[in-house]
């Protein structure tokens, strides 16, 4: 009970601190405030779990998860290599590359653009719970089937965004190229691709999380004895919830890094876009 009350007190105190900090103009505030917020969440979790005496097989406290995370890190790293690098990343690269090429085709051929986009949005609504077993059946239980699931998941978001981006030039920008009697390829490389980059990056960012979801779900339907999805399932059978949460933590890390890397690349390549300035 004491701990529970303490949890609420700490929550209130940290929030008050953040309200103060948020008024300051300094740059470090942008980092400090979310960190304090996150730390508060963890402390409150810890105190509530201990205060209410929640069983470790229901919800372990963050401190236990942290120490387990350190202990099982080597295993989790192997799992991450399997799920994230082999499954998600390769599927991401293949899927995005394929989507990009098809987007160029769809952009060039009107029939494809008008036809593929509606059909594409229909296909992208195919739930992964149904497609994953089919891909596992087709491509085996190794990372290839995971990559295939990921390809299917990231393909359409990127396709739609790229096609939209390639069309997102102003009449004047296009007319300018026209007055130079520029060829299709010149217009593509000097105008439409740069102009499409912000859209492409939107698609790429959305796809990072889809890729991770895809790779992990697909492991449910058959996998080697490695991978984050496998670890979560196998550890849950033993009620090793600290390992389960460590694996979740690992996937959150991987996901955030993945997303962050794409966001950094976006910043570097679309520095000129109003949304990236200021």
């Amino acid at each position, binding site marked *: 009970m004491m701990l529970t009350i303490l949890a609420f007190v700490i929550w209130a105190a940290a929030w008050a601190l953040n309200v103060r900090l948020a008024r300051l103009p300094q740059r470090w505030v942008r980092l400090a405030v979310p960190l304090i917020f996150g730390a508060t969440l963890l402390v409150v979790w810890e105190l509530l779990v201990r205060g209410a005496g929640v069983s470790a097989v*229901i919800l372990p406290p963050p401190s236990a998860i942290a120490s387990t995370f350190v202990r099982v890190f080597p295993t989790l790293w192997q799992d991450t290599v399997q799920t994230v690098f082999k499954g998600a990343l390769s599927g991401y690269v293949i899927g995005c590359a394929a989507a990009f090429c098809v987007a160029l085709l769809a952009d060039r051929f009107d029939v494809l653009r008008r036809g593929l986009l509606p059909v594409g949005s*229909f296909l992208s*609504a195919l*739930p992964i719970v*149904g497609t994953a077993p089919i891909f596992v059946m087709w491509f085996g239980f190794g990372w290839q089937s995971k990559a295939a699931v990921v390809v299917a998941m990231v393909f359409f978001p990127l396709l739609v965004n790229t096609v939209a981006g390639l069309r997102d030039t102003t009449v004047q920008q296009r007319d300018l190229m026209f007055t130079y009697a520029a060829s299709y390829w010149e217009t593509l490389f000097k105008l439409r691709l740069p102009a499409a980059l912000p859209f492409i990056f939107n698609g790429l960012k959305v796809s990072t999380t889809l890729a991770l979801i895809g790779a*992990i779900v697909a492991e449910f*339907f058959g996998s080697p004895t490695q991978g984050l999805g496998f670890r979560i399932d196998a550890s849950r059978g033993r009620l090793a919830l600290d390992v*389960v949460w460590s694996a979740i933590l690992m996937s959150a890390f991987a996901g955030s890094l993945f997303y962050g890397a794409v966001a950094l690349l976006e910043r570097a390549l679309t520095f000129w876009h109003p949304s990236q300035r200021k």
Partner: protein
Amino acid sequence: MTRSQNIVRNVLSVLTVVAAMLLIWTAAVIPMNIHEALTQAEREGIAVTPATAAERRGSSALSLVLANPALIPLTYAQPRPKLPSPAQVVLEFYDSAIAEELDGRRGLVRSGSLSPAGLALHTLKTIETTLLGFALGAVVGVALAVGIVYARTMDLAVMPWAIISQTIPIVALAPMIVLILSSLGVTGLVPRAIIAAYLSFFPVLVGMVKGLRAPDHMQLDLMRTYSATKAQSFWMLRLPMAMPYLFASLKIAIAGALVGAIVSELSTSSTQGLGARMLQGSYYGQTVQIWAALLAAALLAAVMVAVVGAADRVVRRMMGGLA
């Protein structure tokens, strides 16, 4: 080009693409299923080349097709095909969505309630979860967005974590959510809806923050020259301004809620719902059943997005828009 010409062209293009896809699909059925088809033929005593499964294992699908052209029709009639033919899927869809209710022992006509073996019941169950999750996600998303727009602390503290929350695969988290809620005594529809909401609140949050911040300085200053209250400028300026953004993100959110609803059926050992149906199909290797459920889910997504789109148009018209 006029509007109707444009529509005709769009429809024709879609039909072209669909036709091409069906063609590729139909052609792919042959190599995909040839191994199984030949094994089946062999068991039934029909002569195939090469003669035994062991010899065929290494051969490519194409060479098997070429060696056994007479057996091609068999690939379209596999009970557990690797790739069912379009006709098989449509037939199964018809059987489980319509015929089951009309003729089935447990169907609507004979039993007075929807058959568990049919698609309708499962679809309804998924719709239920999706809609509740969608509503929950939309409300949470809008509420957070309002907080973020009006309180800098919320903006700084919550936004990064909202992004991180979406990098955690929901499938990993879903069983934990179910577990924790069930230990709090909450089971059934609510945990599933929460999982669905987890995937649908984020697009709403992002879109709504963008939308609520869409008024430019001038429009906000106009409100200040009237010395309008915060509430007044919310209802009279920010909210109407955010509507197009809201609807754009609601379309993504409802599709997300559907994915979440289906994933949630995995984690809650649901016995009803399209996700449960697909899972069951996969327990028993009923590929065709999975495909039919997939078709139902995609149709459902299309319909739900279309409904949100229609609502969008209605609101737009009410707000004096052109279209």
